[in-house]
């Protein structure tokens, strides 16, 4: 049980021991900052920007930003698992469900616990869940792993029905959470506050994910992804690296689920269906596997693509049956087109553009 945590700690601090040589004086200063601190600074910067944006947004927009936030966290966790360690999980939604239901039960039965404590408990619960699943599936590859995680996505919502006295059956659990703290009520609305809290947690978690991904554990994961045998021969502990990836991904998923119910106030089995798990994987591919930025494009696509298309469809005055289903069709077409022309997803487009610019700069 201690090994994944140790690995994470080592991975997180790995870059400091390297002392990478400065490329240019300005970049050198930035590079010399240890990567966890660097990532936290970036997170703080992003949080300031988002909070600023939030203060000028309506309640509805604030909640949409919050939705982008927790979706981003869930996808970023999946990114580390799929893009980082090469393990395909069709059950990521199940970890979100674990997080959401843990959060709901905590709020319902221990209302005096502060949110931070709840989230820490959720982190522990979903890490344990990830450890169990990861340990059970570490030897599985490709379709077998997909199948095993699929069982999770299909089976877990069934638990809510089986134990419906505790978990509320198909009507799920409903919670009410405290809004803006006293003193801030006049400054921010409950919705804006909720959204800022969500983004605080999301950005902290992303800083951790980025640190892990950039550190030793991240390199180990990528080496396992590229060739397990070669990684093993180079001394990488394949099994525990894969389990560690699973634990990190499930923790991110669980935390995202907890934030989701914190925003929505309701968790039902029908939210955490197989469709959710598949959507997360599909948008990850759309956004771009292998980059944390890809997760951001993916989260934006989940929250806004459907909205924009249904607004557009509303303007076109089509038959209501066509209009209602258009967003789904559109999403499918976009996914196919992006994968056909930009196999690395939306982030791949940006990377290609950046590469082309660098090329033209150097040739000049």
């Amino acid at each position, binding site marked *: 049980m201690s090994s994944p945590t140790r690995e994470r*700690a*080592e991975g*997180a*601090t*790995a870059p*400091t*021991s390297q002392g990478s040589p400065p490329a240019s004086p300005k970049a050198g200063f930035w590079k010399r900052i*240890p*990567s*966890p*601190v660097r990532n*936290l600074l970036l997170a703080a910067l992003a949080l300031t920007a988002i909070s600023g944006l939030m203060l000028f947004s*309506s*309640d*509805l927009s604030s909640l949409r930003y919050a*939705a982008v936030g927790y979706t981003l966290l869930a996808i970023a966790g999946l990114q580390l698992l799929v893009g980082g360690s090469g393990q395909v999980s069709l059950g990521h939604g199940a970890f979100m469900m674990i997080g959401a239901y843990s959060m709901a039960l*905590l709020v*319902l039965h*221990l*209302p*005096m*616990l*502060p*949110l*931070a404590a*709840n*989230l820490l408990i959720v982190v522990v619960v979903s890490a344990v869940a990830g450890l169990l699943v990861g340990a059970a599936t570490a030897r599985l590859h490709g379709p077998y792993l997909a199948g095993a995680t699929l069982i999770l996505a299909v089976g877990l*919502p*069934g638990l809510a*029905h089986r134990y*419906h006295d505790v978990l509320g*059956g*198909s*009507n*799920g659990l*409903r*919670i*009410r*959470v*405290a*809004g803006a*703290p006293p003193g801030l009520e006049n400054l921010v609305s409950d919705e804006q506050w909720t959204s800022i*809290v969500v983004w*605080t*947690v999301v950005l*902290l978690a992303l*800083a*951790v994910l980025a*640190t892990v991904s950039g550190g030793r554990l991240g390199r180990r994961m990528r080496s396992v992804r590229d060739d397990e045998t070669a990684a093993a021969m180079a001394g990488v502990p394949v099994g525990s690296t894969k389990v560690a990836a699973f634990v990190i991904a499930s923790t991110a998923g669980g935390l995202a689920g907890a934030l989701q119910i914190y925003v*929505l*106030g*309701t968790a*039902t*089995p*029908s*939210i955490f269906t197989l469709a959710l798990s598949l959507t997360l994987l599909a948008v990850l591919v759309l956004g771009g596997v292998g980059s944390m930025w890809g997760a951001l494009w993916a989260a934006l696509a989940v929250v806004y693509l459907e909205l924009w298309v249904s607004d557009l469809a509303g303007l076109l005055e089509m*038959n*209501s049956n066509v209009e*209602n289903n258009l967003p*789904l069709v559109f999403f499918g077409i976009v996914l196919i087109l992006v994968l056909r022309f930009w196999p690395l997803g939306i982030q791949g487009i940006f990377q290609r553009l950046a590469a082309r610019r660098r090329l033209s700069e150097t040739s000049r």
Partner: protein
Amino acid sequence: MRMRRGTPVAAAALALALMATACQGAGEVTEGEDADLAVATGVTEDTITVGTHQPLTGVAASGYSPISRGAQAVFDYVNEQGGVNGRQIDYVVKDDAYDPAQTVDVTRELVDEEIFAMFGGLGTPTHSGVLDYLNEEGIPDVFPASGALVWNSPEEYPLTYGWQTDYTKEAKVQGQYIAENFPGQNVGFFYQNDDVGTDSQAGLDQYLTDEVVAREHYESSVTDISAQIAALQAAEAEVVVCSCIPAFMANAMLTASAMEYSPQWVVSSIGGDTRTLQGMLAAFSDGAVEGEAADAFLDGLVITSYMPRIEDPEDEWAQLFIEVWEDYREDDSEVLTNTHVFGMTQAVMFSQALLEAGEDLDRQALIDTLHSIEWQGPSPVPFTSSEDDRGGHQGVYVVQYQAGGDIELIQDTRVTDNAGGPIEETDFTQLSPSELAFHD
């Protein structure tokens, strides 16, 4: 240990930030002030905007999307007649795909677009998620479309008004009917494993005790129900009460027929739409049970009901709904079912309330009207939306379907409560469409 320096920093920052974000208990909610109801948000000189969340896509769409199309047809009809107090009703339907996460989003969107009231938000899991929000924001939450008991909680949700006969009331009448008309026969329950099942059994159990030989449930996500039907057959249940939605009523009939098991089926109003059932029987059997064969399946089906029924040629409301549907449906090939009638009946009653609330319309006026109005139709069942009882329809009548498309009234309307109260007959009669004012 130079290597480990970053971890404590990160951990401390994380802990500090998290502590800062929440000093109070996450579940300790302070009650806000009551929202101001003397506002006329969504009401202009010539329009009233009302919103609803409905499953227009996804798995629940085929079963429930007719409701909002039915309501739309009635609102179009009302608007054509001049609207209510000179105002046109603008009915905004948002798709939530029966996904509670999306319900929260579209409801916020509706409120952002300034609706006057939420009307007929569909589904128990979906609508429960926005119940607190609507009541906090001071938005009248009129006639949510499901039979959950929670809609009738005036203390907790002062702005929510139930509509459907709740599952317990309906089941009490079913239980009494079976005890009186099928004495000594073995009874089996087949129910949806959520509040539909729990609330229904709470009612059935008051009138049926020793007769009950089997209790089987289904999950709406699992379509194979052969084990449950086999268990009912093995227990020799002669009467089976199906507290289920149409898809599972049709499924149960087909599954039982394959086992050569033919009990007397008794189905709740939520699963008792015969035209929808016929369509599903045809679809589930890949066309093997279609037309007359499907009709024969339904012959003798006992249905509890509280709205007008389109199979009833004597009912003037049903006839009006058929005409309105002919004139105002969007797609000419869409056949009218009792599911459409659900939305149409709701729309008539809502228009009636808006009309009676008068020209100086604000949210308080609508609430006052709902408390004081004397409902007289379209349903042949008494209806309540008073200050302290938001139970909606108070009872059901019982019909039996006959092959060929007719229904026979086998028990007049009886009313009851959702606790241990008695079941009583009533002399309630509804007004006809020409007598009941619901548009200018």
